[in-house]
């Protein structure tokens, strides 16, 4: 018994050693997107539309082209001449249209031309020499207005098969799912609350602007260095847009200065390559902060209607939601995700949800940490809070009563396997924060949140060196310490010290395909692949030991970094450490490597529960967050410090979204707050310490039980803070962000 227990313990997993790339990152030597340089390099700059919606009548770049410092100018015409893959369609076409406008500029900041020149200043100056004649068209930026019958049409024919007849052409995708009968459920309720909510678009706000360095020759061979969450995606997208073969473009991911979903696609990368091909020199492009805000993916804005029925004892009898999401001038707003996630934490007999993907004259939305889920949770969990208030129920008890568990049919269809929502709620109930007294003027809010998590295509390769150290090649850029978690998992399987493992983010020429670092998938999927690649290596090591001992490989097992006979019958041999096997591996069969390629499917959904205290100044409407606790199921925390970091980061971003972050558009449809001065992300003095509780309910789909942790942490904050603010101020806030003017207006309206 005792022995078995010990065997189930981890040696390395669950510890928090120094990250392998720590020294590089505290000394300034780590190379990020903008830190690259190439011999003969030119600097690119992008000309962007000053209009929200305009027909491009004429582009005259002759003055720029004639300038002595300018070596190339590109417009959409340069992308049309694709020799290899004509007829781009689907998302590739959307991305092309986004990286360089075609017939129309679709939003303020939409790229219309680009130059490459001998210096960054010369490139910026050259943009002023390009003349563009626009015919300004009517625009729309609000989601509800974009669905109205008289709304300007962004693009005809963009809708897919899912959209019911008779909807405005700006509605491009439609989702509907349900089970049970909501009308029956509402009839059974003691109280039904129906309410409407809106959230404004927010930006991922990574501190590193997009940057890349591209080189492409007339021979169709290219090199690209860029800051990205997924360099294989960059590779195939750029290749498609430029009409070259995917394998002829080698993409190297730089260190990445934050992404949060926003660096899962390309913007300037195909432009740099197009300029490079034309100038026949490497071209570097670095976005300004203002370009990042105006032209890269913010999240969707949302307008939502929620109706929930509840019995006096807290049982939810029915829930219904309509979620309208605006995702810019292209299909992609995650209305379906919002709809599917909104009620996902609850065990419901009667539920129905509808999601809309709506286009408007804004930049193409990109994924942002659990894309779509935070907005839905804000609306749903606000109504639940109001029901608790009216029925005199404890918000945690009510949620426990309705919480989904193993075997629950999820609101979006499937049946849950082992999940940890109940455990997070129990931890919330037991946490000292939940019972701590509040000061006058403060309010406490609670919310649950759900995210699917993702597996995705994954390749990992692991090679041993003669001295017994190991190198792991993974294809998912390290955004928040994943090299450390990969090394821990490899060390666990191989039984060698963490420090003996070097983890490298391989370029696209050195490893098989990998999906982007998104969907909270890195520790799960690359971790699973690392474990399997390491197990592959262990099999090879056991084979060598078996050959040496002259016994069958089945008679050898791997223990604490050594090959040992599997039992007394296998023979009496001293354990052989890994380094002894690798020392002469050249003579015993050659190099020892392991690899793994697959699309893991068992990502394991994730739940969290947040508790927050807020204080509202009744005279100014200003909110401060006085205490915050994140409780979330990690399945198994590989590197607990970085798991805590994900929880804290998600909460902090949620606080920004809830209180002050928003895209502000003028009457002209132009973005008014495209710098960090006016796009107000939380600063250090805005936040309290953020307490965390790591709940571990192992995911059956991962060898060590890992569930992704990156995204779920941003789902509960909007609602938890809205509930806290509503309790503190005595008014229900239905619009995000809850900026001081909005709260003060609500307070005045309340008399």
């Amino acid at each position, binding site marked *: 018994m005792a022995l078995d227990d010990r065997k189930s313990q981890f040696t390395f997993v669950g510890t928090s050693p120094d990250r392998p790339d720590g020294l590089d990152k505290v000394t300034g030597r780590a190379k990020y997107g903008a830190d690259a340089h190439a011999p003969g390099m030119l600097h690119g700059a992008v000309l962007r539309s000053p209009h929200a919606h305009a027909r491009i009548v004429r582009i005259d770049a002759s003055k720029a082209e004639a300038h002595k410092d300018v070596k190339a100018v590109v417009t959409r015409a340069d992308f049309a001449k694709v020799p290899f893959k004509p007829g781009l369609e689907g998302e590739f076409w959307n991305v092309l249209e986004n990286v360089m406008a075609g017939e129309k500029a679709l939003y303020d900041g939409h790229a219309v031309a680009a130059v490459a020149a001998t210096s960054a200043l010369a490139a*910026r100056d050259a943009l002023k020499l390009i003349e563009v004649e626009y015919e300004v068209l009517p625009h729309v930026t609000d989601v509800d207005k974009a669905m109205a019958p008289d709304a300007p049409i962004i693009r005809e024919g963009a809708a897919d098969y899912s959209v019911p007849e008779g909807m405005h052409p700006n509605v491009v995708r439609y989702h509907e799912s349900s089970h049970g009968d909501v009308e029956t459920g509402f009839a059974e309720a003691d109280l039904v609350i129906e309410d409407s909510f809106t959230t404004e678009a927010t930006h991922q706000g990574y501190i590193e602007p997009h940057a890349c360095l591209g080189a492409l020759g007339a021979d169709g061979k290219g090199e690209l260095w860029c800051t990205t969450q997924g360099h294989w995606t960059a590779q195939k997208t750029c290749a498609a847009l430029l009409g070259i073969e995917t394998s002829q473009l080698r993409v190297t991911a730089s260190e990445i200065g934050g992404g949060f979903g926003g660096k899962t696609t390309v913007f300037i990368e195909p432009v740099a390559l197009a300029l490079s091909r034309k100038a026949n020199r490497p071209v570097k492009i670095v976005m*300004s902060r*203002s370009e990042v805000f105006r032209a890269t993916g913010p999240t969707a804005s949302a307008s939502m209607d929620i109706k929930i029925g509840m019995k006096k004892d807290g049982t939810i009898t029915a829930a219904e939601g309509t979620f309208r999401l605006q995702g810019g001038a292209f299909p992609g707003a995650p209305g379906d995700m919002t709809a599917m996630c909104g009620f996902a934490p609850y065990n419901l007999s009667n539920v129905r949800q509808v999601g809309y993907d709506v286009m408007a004259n804004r930049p193409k939305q990109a994924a942002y940490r659990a894309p779509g889920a935070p907005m839905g949770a804000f609306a749903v969990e606000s109504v639940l809070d109001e029901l608790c208030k009216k029925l005199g129920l404890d918000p945690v008890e009510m949620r426990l009563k309705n919480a989904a568990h193993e075997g629950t049919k999820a609101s979006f269809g499937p049946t849950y396997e082992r999940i940890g929502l109940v455990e997070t709620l129990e931890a919330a109930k037991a946490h000292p924060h939940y019972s701590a007294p509040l000061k006058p003027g403060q309010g406490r809010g609670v919310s649950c949140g759900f995210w699917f998590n993702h597996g995705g295509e994954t390749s990992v390769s692991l090679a041993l060196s003669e001295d017994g150290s190991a190198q792991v090649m993974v294809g998912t850029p390290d955004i928040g310490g994943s090299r450390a978690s990969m090394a821990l998992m490899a060390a666990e399987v191989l039984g060698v010290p963490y420090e003996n493992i070097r983890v490298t983010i391989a370029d696209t020429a050195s490893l098989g395909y990998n999906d982007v670092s998104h969907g909270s998938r890195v520790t799960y999927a690359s971790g699973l692949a690392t474990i399997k690649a390491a197990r592959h290596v262990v099999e090879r090591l056991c084979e060598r030991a078996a050959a040496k001992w002259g016994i069958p490989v089945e008679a050898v097992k791997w223990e604490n970094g050594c090959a040992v006979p599997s039992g007394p019958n296998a023979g009496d041999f001293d354990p052989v450490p890994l380094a002894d096997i690798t020392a002469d591996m050249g003579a015993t069969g050659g190099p020892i490597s392991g690899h793994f390629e697959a699309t893991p499917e068992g990502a394991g959904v994730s739940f969290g529960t947040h508790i927050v205290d807020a204080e509202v100044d009744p*005279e*100014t*409407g*200003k909110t*401060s967050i006085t205490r915050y606790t994140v409780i979330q199921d990690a399945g198994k925390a590989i590197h607990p410090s970085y798991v805590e970091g994900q929880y804290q980061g998600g909460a902090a971003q949620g606080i920004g979204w809830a*209180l*002050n972050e928003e895209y*502000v558009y003028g009457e002209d449809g132009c973005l*008014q*707050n495209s*710098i*960090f*001065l*006016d796009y*107000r992300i*939380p*600063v250090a*003095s*805005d936040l309290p310490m953020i307490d965390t509780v790591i709940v571990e309910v192992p995911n059956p789909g991962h060898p060590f039980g890992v569930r992704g942790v990156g995204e779920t942490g941003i789902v509960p904050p909007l609602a938890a803070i809205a509930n806290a603010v509503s309790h503190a101020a005595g008014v229900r806030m239905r619009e995000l962000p809850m*900026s*001081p*003017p909005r709260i*003060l*207006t609500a307070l*005045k309206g309340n008399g």
Partner: protein
Amino acid sequence: MDYHSPANFAEASALAAKATGITRFLAGGTDVLVQLRSDLVTPDTLIDIKKINGVRDITRNADGSWTLGVATTGAEMSEHSALGRDWPGVVEAMDLIGSTQVQGRATLTGNLCNGSPAADSVPAMVAAGVTVTVTGPDGDREVAVEDIPTGPGRTALAKGELISAVNIPARGENGGDAYLRFIPRTEMDIAVVGVGVNLRLDGDTIAEARVSLGAVAPTVLLVDDCAKAIIGTTLDDAALDALAAAASAACNPIDDKRGTIEFRTEVSGVLAKRAAKIAYARAKGEQA
């Protein structure tokens, strides 16, 4: 862009007088560089005044008044304890501008000449009765701070003129000043509303007062009605309410990305009360 770093103000003035196109003076540069970088304003001539002797001096004059060099940074003001004891409102207003890093560069003069109605140091300077020395082709003149801005981004300085010194009056007995602003975060924002209050007591009664509002009109306002509302009172509740009403009444704000007309109007009254209480406590010699 031509860059000059003249050795004295006369030379700086002469350079500006003969320059064509757009001329900017470079003190801390925290506005000039942002405008340059974003292609909002690319000066044809940039005149760096930091090489002029004495531009970073903080001098207490024999009569108790203060003269500040035009390149004195916010950080240097905050570190000067005697200045902070005399004029805590002015120093704190300056200190509210931007980050620690910005404080290492930003100046009162730059904040004033940028011409923003939301400039934090300006209402505090106006309330304090600060003047500036303007050097031009025809010599020097002294101008009250409230007379420098003429509208958003515009000043009363003529071609060839620049500010060569900041003159803060003697604090004198029984006086106190304060500046408060409203921002949505705790740091790093532009004021949505700013209020500067400077007063002098005779016993418990306010004998003199100057109240100034920022970010609620095209320029920073010196509001006589606010001063009248509290002069002759002990800052009792009625006086505070009258002050708030006068502040709100003086507002002529706009709706913009930082705040609404209603919000600015309402909050200017709230902040006027809060700032007046601090200034009053300071005048009484209480810590506030």
